[in-house]
């Protein structure tokens, strides 16, 4: 397995609290890796460290053989690692197409002006937003906003896509569509690391699942296996009661 992303002893302290504690793992290329864990386990913090928004207190993040920890987010994005936000953040004053255009223009190294527009349109089509290009981002439904969030990230031509709870708040039909989209993105060769709470979808999508609890990595393996590990169950449900 070639590693797309390598985390080496990544630790983040906020005062006395270890939000992320000594996480070392290699994320395989072209796979879908799930990241689960109870609330407050440090998953989003880990994403923020990888994407450059937060600096790790210790440890390194390596991508394509280079260290990216400590680089500014825009640099990390241009190198090929892009993050979508848990709470979606569209540019509300811009149209859907314009939103994607921003990402296409800045995302991955220099691109010729004339191709940016075409690329943006292509991505809208891919993510199912083709008819909504001219609409202001502010009028989109939640499901559409999530797709816009993904579309923008895709426009930066990422090698690694970090999806933060992209299925949250969607109804069953929308969830199915989103799952299909994630599969298609993966099929296109993008490495996906996704935080999810919607377990069924996660188990169906992921090739491998990592479990975080209190900032530590407590499990790592295929979904079915991980789901039945005692420490994982304990993390979510608490200790077994001896009755």
């Amino acid at each position, binding site marked *: 397995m070639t590693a797309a992303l390598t985390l080496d002893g990544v630790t983040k302290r*906020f005062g006395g609290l270890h939000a992320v504690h000594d996480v070392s793992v290699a994320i395989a290329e072209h796979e879908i890796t799930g990241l689960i864990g109870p609330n407050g386990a440090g998953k989003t*913090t880990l994403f*923020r460290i990888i994407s450059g928004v*937060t600096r790790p207190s210790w440890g390194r993040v390596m991508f394509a053989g280079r260290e990216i920890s400590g680089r500014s987010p825009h640099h990390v994005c241009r190198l090929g690692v892009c993050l979508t936000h848990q709470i979606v953040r569209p540019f509300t004053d811009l149209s859907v197409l314009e939103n994607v255009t921003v990402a296409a223009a800045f995302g991955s190294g220099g691109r010729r002006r004339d191709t940016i527009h075409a690329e943006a349109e292509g991505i809208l089509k891919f993510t199912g937003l083709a008819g909504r290009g001219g609409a202001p981002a502010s009028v989109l439904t939640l499901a559409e906003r999530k797709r816009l969030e993904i579309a923008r990230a895709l426009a930066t031509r990422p090698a690694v896509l970090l999806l933060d709870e992209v299925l949250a708040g969607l109804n069953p039909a929308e969830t199915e569509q989103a799952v299909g989209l994630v599969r298609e993105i993966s099929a296109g060769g993008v490495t996906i690391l996704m935080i999810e709470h919607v377990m069924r979808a996660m188990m169906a999508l992921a090739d491998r699942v990592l479990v975080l609890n209190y900032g530590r990595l407590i499990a790592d393996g295929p979904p079915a296996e991980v789901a039945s590990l005692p420490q994982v169950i304990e993390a979510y449900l608490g200790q077994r009661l001896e009755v």
Partner: protein
Amino acid sequence: MFSAQNLVSVGIAALLTAGLYAIMSYGLAIIYGVMRVINLSHAGFLMLGAFMTLVYFQRWHLDPVLGAFVNLPLFFALGWLLHRLLVRRVVTSLPVASLLLLFGLWLVIQNLALAIWGGEDQSIITAYTYKALSLFGFRVPVTRLIVFAVALSVLAVLHFLLGHTYLGKALRATVQDPTAGLLVGIDTDRISALAFGLGTAFAAFAGGLLTLLFSFNPDFGGSFQLKSFTIIVLGGLENLAGVAAGAAILAFAESYAVLFMRASLQNVVAYALLVVALIVIPGGIGSLFSQNRS
């Protein structure tokens, strides 16, 4: 110049100034803490408070200290009114909207004062303006002592009220966490109006006290406002007592700095501290209150 006696004398002056600075910044701190708004009309109310105190003195021979107290209810009402009419209605499409609105208010206040009282320097001379007391061998102007004593007592009363009344606790709660405040049933609109009223009242109160120490004109207030902001940035806002800490830091820094440089450059100390504090204090104090509190 650096004799022990001189240093102590400067120290005493700094301490007395700190008291004034604390009460002067209090109004700004309340408004900023509760509403997350930078009140650029603070300077205007400092100045109006000074001028109103002048009016009471000229018309009814009211001592400036008493005049300052008279300002409290008067300007509280004014502040409350302004909040209902103006501040509450600002569309938050622009992040700096309320800042600019209050700035506009400052311009209006300045001009009104100019129109009513003209642009010349005014001062209030009382029977004790030029008197000084001997304290541990140092001559201290009576006016400075009075201002310090009044400021300290008022701050003490405020501290008590904040800790022991419902409104006081509601205010502190909103400063610490507005969302949580909403969740426990605090009416943030009323609290904001209260905060704005109090902020205005204390600005005018401080303005009244300032007349004992300085002469003033309609342009007066700008530098005090910036110093007030420096103080609240330095002192932090976890509890309103941070204002006292910030006031002390600024007062001492300013007072001792004059030993090394021209007096006319004194205000630069405050401005430099402001900019440095904004940058150095964890990501600027603004980051403590930005959208994502991680």
